[in-house]
């Protein structure tokens, strides 16, 4: 029997194992032992280097697969005292007739080796994940200090990772076994310390907890999945773990709120079906069909459907947002204050209203009661979308030379993307619906101008836009 005592490091094992192998000491004739902390780094104790070296003089050399050496480097960090003998046994078998041994993963020795390797790798990975630096100021210097409790002897193995990542910072990672310090240039190691020597807080942690709490989705509680990857043994060094119980406690009330919101959303989605439009080239058939449209809920509060109006051979189609209070009662588009303003502007621009067809993107009046008045409300996307087939059908039948969108709602639905009127007004564009499409403001926006001066200026701009249309008709 040979008793081999060594400093617990891969390099030491590598050195000793090579010599033992050269001395042809079979795995079952060798006992391996970690040098205790009081007898550090002596290499061979029982077998003096001289004796082993002597035995190795005429020894054969072995070709060991690179994969094994890499694996050994990792397994050497495992906390089990048994690792040295296992490594040597596998090394012996590899060099004595079983060169392919590592490929037989189900061999009990190899299986154990892989299990140990995996355990160390997981520890390495978890350390990279769960180290939490805390900022401290020490003698005017900003330092980052972390406390971590690894399962295996991995501090040195993991040092290059942390140096690569935080090379520009000054930091220390404290562990019970050893401490690693980086001063921005080189790494040094000192003996281990106890947990209460590490800093206990950092101002940034409350923001981190805020983030953690809000990125959590309470509707998907799956604690076992969390625990599989973040076992409770790590919790005491993770600041965010402190709020996990609170988050779980509050999950179901939060879900109820989400549920209410989701029901509202779902019922809106169900309402967003586009209208069913008859296949016809007769505007009157279309108008009759639209009178009973229930594609969106707006029909419930409106007096009637307000369909487009004008000649089927019109050269210009104006499309507005939706009927207003007066239009709703009259059943005709653009007859209220905004309509009057449109008439005035058309006249100023020299356009005959008779050559126009006027309609709206949404054909029911959407309103909210305020005192005695019915206050206009902007239609939402679902309603605009539900109504789209109607104006599409109108355009297909009329085939205007020019299409004018009045206001953002009409422009958005015709151009199929949100627009800023100011960016594109008064310019002809080609769209799916008309080779000459122009966007301008809705006449009701002129009514909302606070003072007569701006109203006049805006009116002039509106007329100027319409003048473009008149010019294009010539």
């Amino acid at each position, binding site marked *: 029997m040979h008793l081999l005592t060594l400093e617990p490091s891969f390099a030491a094992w590598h050195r000793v194992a090579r010599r033992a192998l050269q001395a042809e000491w079979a795995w079952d004739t060798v006992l391996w032992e970690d040098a205790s902390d009081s007898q550090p780094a002596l290499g061979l104790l029982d077998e003096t280097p001289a004796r082993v070296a002597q035995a190795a003089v005429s020894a054969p050399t072995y070709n060991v697969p690179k994969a094994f050496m890499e694996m050994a480097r990792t397994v050497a960090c495992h906390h089990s005292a048994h690792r040295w003998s296992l490594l040597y046994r596998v090394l012996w078998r590899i060099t004595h007739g079983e060169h392919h041994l590592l490929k037989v993963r189900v061999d009990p020795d190899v299986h154990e080796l892989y299990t140990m390797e995996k355990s160390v790798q997981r520890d390495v990975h978890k350390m990279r994940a769960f180290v939490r630096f805390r900022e401290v100021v020490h003698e005017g210097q900003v330092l980052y200090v972390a406390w971590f409790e690894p399962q295996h002897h991995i501090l040195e193995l993991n040092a290059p990772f942390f140096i690569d990542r935080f090379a*520009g910072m000054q930091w220390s990672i404290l562990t019970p076994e050893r401490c690693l310090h980086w001063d921005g240039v080189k790494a040094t190691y000192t003996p281990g310390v106890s947990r209460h020597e590490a800093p206990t807080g950092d101002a940034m942690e409350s923001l981190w907890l*805020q983030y953690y709490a809000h990125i959590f*989705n309470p509707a998907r509680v799956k604690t076992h999945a969390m625990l599989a990857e973040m076992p409770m043994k790590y919790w005491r060094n993770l600041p965010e773990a402190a709020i996990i119980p609170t988050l779980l406690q509050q999950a179901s009330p939060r879900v109820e709120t989400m549920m209410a919101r989701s029901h509202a959303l779902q019922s809106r989605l169900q309402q967003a079906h586009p209208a069913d439009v008859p296949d016809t080239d007769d505007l009157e058939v279309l108008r009759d069909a639209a009178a009973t449209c229930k594609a969106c809920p707006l029909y419930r509060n409106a007096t009637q459907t307000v369909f487009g109006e004008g000649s089927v051979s019109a050269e210009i189609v104006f499309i507005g947002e939706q009927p207003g209070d007066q239009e709703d009662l009259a059943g005709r588009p653009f007859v209220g204050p905004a309509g009057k303003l449109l008439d005035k502007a058309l006249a100023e621009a020299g356009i005959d209203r008779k050559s126009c067809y006027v309609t709206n993107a949404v054909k029911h009046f959407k309103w909210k009661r305020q005192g005695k008045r019915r206050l206009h409300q902007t239609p939402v996307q679902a309603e605009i979308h539900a109504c789209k087939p109607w104006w599409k059908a109108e355009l297909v039948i009329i085939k205007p030379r020019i299409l004018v969108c009045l206001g953002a709602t009409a422009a958005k639905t015709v151009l199929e993307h949100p627009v800023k009127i100011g960016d594109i007004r008064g310019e002809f564009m080609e769209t799916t619906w008309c080779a000459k499409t122009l966007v301008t403001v809705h006449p009701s926006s002129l009514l909302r101008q606070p003072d007569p001066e701006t109203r006049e200026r805006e009116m002039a701009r509106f007329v100027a836009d319409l003048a473009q249309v008149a010019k294009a008709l010539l």
Partner: protein
Amino acid sequence: MTSIEGGQVRPAPFPLNRKISRPANHHQMDIAQKLSILADAAKYDASCASSGTSKRNSREGGLGSTTGAGICHSYTPDGRCVSLLKILLTNYCIYDCQYCINRVSSDVRRARFTAEEVVKLTMDFYRRNYIEGLFLSSGIIRNADYTMEQVVRVARMLREEQGFKGYLHLKTIPEASPELIAQAGRWADRISINVELPTPADLERLAPEKNLGRIRGAMTTIQRRIDQAKAEVKETTKAPPFAPAGQSTQMIIGATAAQDREILDQSSSLYRHHKLRRVYYSAFSPIPDASQRLPLMAPPLVREHRLYQADWLMRFYGFQAQELTTPEAPQLSLEMDPKMAWAMRHPQSFPVDVNTASREMLWRIPGLGVRNVDRILQIRRWHRVTLADLQRLRVSLKKVLPFVQTADHHPREIGSAQWQQTLKPAQQLELFAPAIGVVTGEL
């Protein structure tokens, strides 16, 4: 900051309960309030991946590193990993996508970060090892280009001014100009554009401002850039990178009537035409229906999980999209995983002899993952594989036994009633623990 000596500072009691009155404008909101609103708004994006990018470190300056493998720095009680600081620059949005919490017509609270705030937050979190990097997305403000400029500005500040070497994922807007998307790719590790919904008709109905043709067009442009950058790197290592971790996308499922068969076809086409790294699926309504038998595993979540499994089968197990469902049953089974479902539909293909079958056929055995298939292929060169071997590989015998033949096992008659019976318990277990596969991807 605290000092080592007096280090008594504990994080303030957590203010989850505190009702914060709505401030007059977002500039008066403090960072913590903005962070809560804009992290809340960002959690509907499923991706948190930080893997597969080029290797970098900060030994020559700057801060951060990437190793190619992602790191999950924490896990929330929903079982999801926290790898990146995932936030919106703002949740103001001019779009009105019906499924989205941030749509213009929603009454959700709004906030907006300045670029400087995002940069500082990212750097502060990164220095403390909370995160691998930043996943920045944004609601559309003013217009697509303006928004994209803001997002790109954050990325540029991080890379150029701070020398940030960590991971950057930028959500891009298909309507933004190609020059801006090009700039995004220059700074980002990963770029994503969400297809949002599985079919063009769905998009037309629920997200009228979006357009599948435009989205796919932008993906093609990005892919061309990525390929070009890769080719250039081969010629000269000095060539500027372009989104080295590729592009990904997300689609919302359950908001429309689109069936799994259509969804998988769409994914398969996305993988094929745009070489996407990942397609993420996000169940639209995570809210369990009161009548459901399994309260926390309501159909949308199980369905989402089944889609991920099917997606995995397409990418790593040699399955075609069309094989995973049938025209008669276009939905994936909720009761069993899609590989098991395929096996049940094809009893004639089993048992598979693990000692002789091809890799492709081994992949089709329910309960056998890609890595274990590799191991079996190695082992069987040296000895005949037995049940004990499978056990040592931690294969679930219960699951594989009805389908495999080993040196010491031959299953009872495939397809018989008795055989069907043996499958029952395995299936039910699967229903209770569907979260595992998403993490490991092993089926």
